[in-house]
């Protein structure tokens, strides 16, 4: 039944099929992603309390003005930024370091990759449960640090001191994801053709120079990818901080934006304000994702 189709109608048919294929996903997104975010933005323009049966009052951008003037919200921004920067920089450095060291080993590469990756496989609730016990004053963290620094009996207050508790959350997060980013770097390293190193060797380079002048620059797109990805992950962090505060840790030092949203909505019932907070977070993340898209497009490496 081969009808003679003109090129035009084949294209049209294919185009239709294109839409058909993407349609189901678009419907799901429309209902469960786009509608909620618009709804959240709409709600953020009102003063609304979760239990109230009365109609919410329209206050325009007042929620945003309140938040931008609220020391509590700025504390959340501070907590989130500190957490993000304090996590992604060591994450970047260590994952790059591990990737380079592992790849320069001739054996046991898979063992190390799996060992470093394994914490990412555990659920974040499990990780928090384990670390809560480790950070208990009588737990492993104190024991090991005291052993290594020869300071018996000192409580480093992993969950009590406001600076330490932030450090603790960064430590847990870094522990969980260092393997994941190590793998990304390994792939990035593997994609650098050996021929470049050969050329360098012929030109008389040594290992250190190779690394600094060849490897590192060629890894720039991967580095940027890792940075942005880890930053976005960190901006969204919730479970670790939530579970630590449930376990007794102080709220203020680690009151990241996501947790603030959760508490403002669920504990304080102020859903208008919570929505505004989450829209602000959304804009921050939009910004970073835009940066990522821009940079990964700009840095197309050609050998």
């Amino acid at each position: 039944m081969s009808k003679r189709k003109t090129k035009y109608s084949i294209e049209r048919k294919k185009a239709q099929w294109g839409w058909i294929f993407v349609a189901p996903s678009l419907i799901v997104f429309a209902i469960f992603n786009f509608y909620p975010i618009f709804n959240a933005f709409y709600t953020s323009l009102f003063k609304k309390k979760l239990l109230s049966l009365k109609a919410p009052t329209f206050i325009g951008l007042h929620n945003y003005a309140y938040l931008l003037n609220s020391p509590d919200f700025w504390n959340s921004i501070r907590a989130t930024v500190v957490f993000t920067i304090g996590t992604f920089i060591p994450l970047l450095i260590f994952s790059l370091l591990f990737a380079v060291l592992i790849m320069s080993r001739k054996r046991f590469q898979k063992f190390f990759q799996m060992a470093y990756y394994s914490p990412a496989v555990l659920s974040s609730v499990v990780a928090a449960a384990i670390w809560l016990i480790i950070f208990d004053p009588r737990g492993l963290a104190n024991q090991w640090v005291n052993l290594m620094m020869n300071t018996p009996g000192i409580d480093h207050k992993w969950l009590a001191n406001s600076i330490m508790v932030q450090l603790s959350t960064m430590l847990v997060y870094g522990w969980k994801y260092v393997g994941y980013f190590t793998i990304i770097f390994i792939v990035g390293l593997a994609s650098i053709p050996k021929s470049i190193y050969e050329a360098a060797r012929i030109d008389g380079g040594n290992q250190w120079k190779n690394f600094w002048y060849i490897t590192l620059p060629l890894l720039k797109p991967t580095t940027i990818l890792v940075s942005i990805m880890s930053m976005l992950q960190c901006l969204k962090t919730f479970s670790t901080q939530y579970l630590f505060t449930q376990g007794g840790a102080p709220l203020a030092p680690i009151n990241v934006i996501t947790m603030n949203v959760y508490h403002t909505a669920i504990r304080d019932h102020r859903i208008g304000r919570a929505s505004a907070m989450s829209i602000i977070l959304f804009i921050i993340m939009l910004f970073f994702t835009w940066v990522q898209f821009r940079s990964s497009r700009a840095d197309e490496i050609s050998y």
Partner: protein
Amino acid sequence: MSQKLQLNRIKKRGLFQQYNIFELLVWVFLIITALFVLAPTIFMFTASFMPANDILKMPFRWIPKSFYWQNFWQGIRGNNGSFIYVRNILNSLIVAAVVSATTVFFSALAGFGLAKYYFKGRNMVFMFIMATMMIPFEAIMIPLYLVTTKLGLQDSYAGLIVPFLVNAFGIFLMRQYFITFPDEILDAARIDGAGEWMIFRTIILPNSIPAIATLAILTFKAQWDNLLWPLLVVQSEEMKTIPLYIVKFMAEKHTDEGAMMAVAAIASIPILIVFFKLSKYFLGGAAIYSSRKG
């Protein structure tokens, strides 16, 4: 080329002279850090075999005196003896498996559509889909909850599954993979009279196992781990998933660390087994993401 040179060098000079101090230090560093990274997981398993009182004794004994199975019994039994943990594990399995399946299916569909079909507005659609990745879940959790309850889906499998039927990362992954799929095969099939749907089913899907497996595993793991959404949508004991059970257990018996670790161990063993057997998909998943170039 250089590998061969190295091998020759080893043969000539002997293995030990190959390693200088620097190399040794690197090995030591790698091994020690690997131990640090593995320690908490090992701790979880060790502690799950110890009675709670022993866990926080200083100093910590890495090898338990005996295998205190009561922790596992207590963990599975639950604090009210209802053994609901078994049901919760089942729930997590069902939800994770179904979400994996739907995500793979819908992502493959959409990824295929975006990769191999040219239609007006294709780029816009792709951008929109990518934009959903930037929406933090907390921003939409309350409206999403209200939508879900309006549809009457709260406290049910449907409610746990439906918001996650498909996600942008999956579509991205599939699209990346399909872009490299040779067009000639598809055109040949069309000439033979195959419809688009049949092409998808019989050609694309069977030949995309690596990408499908990777996506399936990553999605499964993400759903297994999901805390925030079930926290909102689940209202009864029976519909809880594993993370909710752990949170509840933590709140009630905060001081029975042994049982707590047993619960955690039980929750982790399935996913760890999958990890060991299918590690290439986990490690590959990260690789696929990194190979994207815009």
